[in-house]
């Protein structure tokens, strides 16, 4: 299986869609989280200085994705941080995530916008025709 691992943004009305692609669902979850960071700033500008642990549980993978992204939105908001590197492990409908980042530095990060929340719009978790795992949804900014 030749899967291109990565993340991207896509256009959606007033807001923005985030999409992660990977060889597993966990990897797609990691990549879509980078896309979330990319809404705020260029993830490459964020240094992995602090680690944050995240756990979530949901009745299905799609709600789990929204929960994962919203947990990151919450941690970034209360810690005034940008999180841009991730490790995810999934067990059934339980997610354990590790996220790395640093405190927001306005001059260096030039943060464009804060994310209000991940939404259920265009929400998809599953495999595409090439066999790659895709995790995506629209985020409200």
């Amino acid at each position: 299986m030749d899967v291109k691992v990565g993340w991207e943004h896509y256009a959606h009305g007033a807001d923005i869609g985030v999409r992660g692609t990977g060889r597993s669902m966990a990897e797609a979850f990691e990549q879509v989280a980078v896309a979330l960071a990319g809404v705020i700033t260029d993830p490459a500008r964020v240094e992995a200085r602090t680690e944050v642990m995240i756990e979530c549980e949901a009745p299905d993978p799609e709600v789990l994705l929204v929960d994962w992204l919203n947990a990151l939105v919450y941690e970034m908001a209360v810690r005034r941080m940008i999180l841009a590197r991730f490790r995810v492990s999934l067990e059934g409908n339980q997610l354990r995530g590790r996220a790395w980042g640093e405190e927001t530095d306005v001059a260096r990060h030039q943060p464009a916008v804060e994310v209000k929340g991940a939404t259920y719009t265009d929400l998809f978790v599953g495999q595409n025709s090439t066999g790659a795992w895709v995790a995506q949804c629209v985020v409200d900014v």
Partner: protein
Amino acid sequence: MTLLSRLSDFEWRIEAHGKMRVPAILYASEELIRDMDNKVYEQIVNVATLPGIQKAAYAMPDAHWGYGFPIGGVAAFDPQEGGVVSAGGVGFDISCGVRTLLTGIKAADLTPLKHSLADALYRHIPAGVGSTGRLNLDDQQLDEMLLNGAQWALKLGYGREADLDRTEERGCMAGARPEAVSEFAKNRQRREMGTLGSGNHYLEIQHVVQIYDEASARAFGLAPDDIVVSIHCGSRGLGHQIGTDFLREMVLQAPHYGIELPDRELACAPIESPLGETYLGAMRAAINCALANRQIITHLVRQAFAEVIPVADLSVLYDVSHNTCKVEEHIVDGHPKRVFIHRKGATRAFGPGHPAIPEALRAIGQPVLIGGTMGTASYILVGMDESERRSFSSSCHGAGRQMSRHQATKHWRGRQLIDELAGRGIIIRSPSTRGVAEEAPGAYKDVTAVVEAAEEAGLSRRVARLEPLICVKG
């Protein structure tokens, strides 16, 4: 689009079909209708399927693709008929709104001090991602704020009693339940009081460039060349988190309440259910948070003016929220009825004589504050008698986006935009050039076409046009 029938030049109807319980009505010019995203039709039709909806689902002239509800959507529900309350129908930025302040100074008074004022405002008002206010609220202070809104802010010395007279609900939304607000939501808000936020939120210094309705303008205290201040922001992290928390609950509990959702974002709960009541209590607390936030920012604006232009005397013209669900009395089938009215990206627009309008303005009608873009214009309108019949007394709320953020950053560079606007006499202060590019005036619909359509459709009437001179952007 084929289902649309034209009732007049500014009113379009989709007859109830399929699972729709009522028709959908769209108010817009033909041009605005043509430009509207197809999702607007899909979403307004979906809204019309919700239990207990009254009369029709309405879309305002600035309607665009939202979450569940279109932004610019209005819908009223009767709890006696199984009516629902929808977290998506209020939106993530609960009670986002506009407050306009009169200053008592003219454009000529500002000219020599414009840059100093821009700097002072940027210094005094925290804006942008990760910014914090001076307050750091403990649990008790948070609960007091959530219960008492702008009245709480006033007690701390932020503002004057007269400010409340010109704020919806006199600055305090009744029925707030701080205990219904999660710890997560509270934690997000502790340090965010008195902050502007980011995205489409702003603080603008504007001048009055045109008056359309002399009598209303006089009553509102507006004359040509007057300098006014407009503040556009909402309930910050607290509102966002409440939206997130309850959207999830409503999605998961919909089957339990027997609600079939055409779209998960339309998640809702019966008004008379534990979840519906809890959401309403939390949402009202978020309204108070937004009102307190705009009250604190008003105080900070006064401080900035006092430093630079001490002769200015800032009084509140009005404060309106455009993402809410409120209990109001409206005429349904010829009789007054108590309904829960959702306005998602829509402004309340009560006509003359309505008891909710401040006494000094009651004979004229409610001021309707419409935010535009940093490069075009904003408008002040007034509610009309007709709007009760047409849209449960609701009007548009802004220009409405026509281009995504993603596309906008491909079209414009922030620095270049700031220079162009400077050439036109508009000073931008923002921590983020990319944020400015995402908010490029060209990414929005023509606000003038939107307010003209609102007027022609009988939703509200133009009083004054305002153009920006300084814009602080988050």
